[in-house]
């Protein structure tokens, strides 16, 4: 196993660990707003994991998945935060 593969495996393992910790923080959150923030961060770490996979496999479609995940996460966070704060999504 080369140095490149070792670095990627360490990075992927570490990102997976961060994902687990972020999930734990989200589940144990004290408020709904904190859970929304936890989910947003969870998605960002998932995007990082997909970027690492794209680098490892040299395949662009992992980045397509990452892009659509960001798109969904942004829309979802915005809608959830607005609904939680003002009880309406559209002003």
């Amino acid at each position, binding site marked *: 196993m080369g140095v490149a593969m070792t670095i990627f495996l360490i990075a992927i393992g*570490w990102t997976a660990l961060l994902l687990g910790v972020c999930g734990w923080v989200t589940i144990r959150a004290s408020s709904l707003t904190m859970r*929304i923030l936890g989910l947003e961060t969870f998605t*960002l770490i998932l*995007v990082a994991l997909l970027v690492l996979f794209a680098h490892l496999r040299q395949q662009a479609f992992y980045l397509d998945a990452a892009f659509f995940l960001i798109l969904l996460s942004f829309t979802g966070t915005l809608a959830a*935060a607005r609904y939680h704060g003002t009880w309406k999504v559209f002003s």
Partner: protein
Amino acid sequence: MSAAVTFWIASGLILLGMLIMSAAIYGMIRLPDLYTRLHAASKAAVLGVLPLLIAISMTGDPAIIFRAILIGFFLLFTTPVAAHAIAQAAYARGELMQTPGARDESGLGLATKPAPAGQASNPERSAERSKTEH
């Protein structure tokens, strides 16, 4: 640029991204309230993903480079908006500021913990306030 140099720069960027993202998660665990956690999560997580995108752009494949640039721009533009929406929701719901010495200038009384004894929450503001009061 030789392949070896590119490889080491990409590896360094990946490790940098991991380090910054770890700081984001540490901040989410360690910081006392949502407003400060939001600061850690929104800034550090984006700054952690960007080095990874730069690293993947060094592969030279145009399809990957185009997508990485697209993701980078989209992250830079959407994450502050999402963070603002979350902070606004927290403020509207009366989420308390539990950082010692935090000040709620709106007067809603969301700041709960005073600054530790002998330490002003914001020395410059305290000095300004004492000037105007006297």
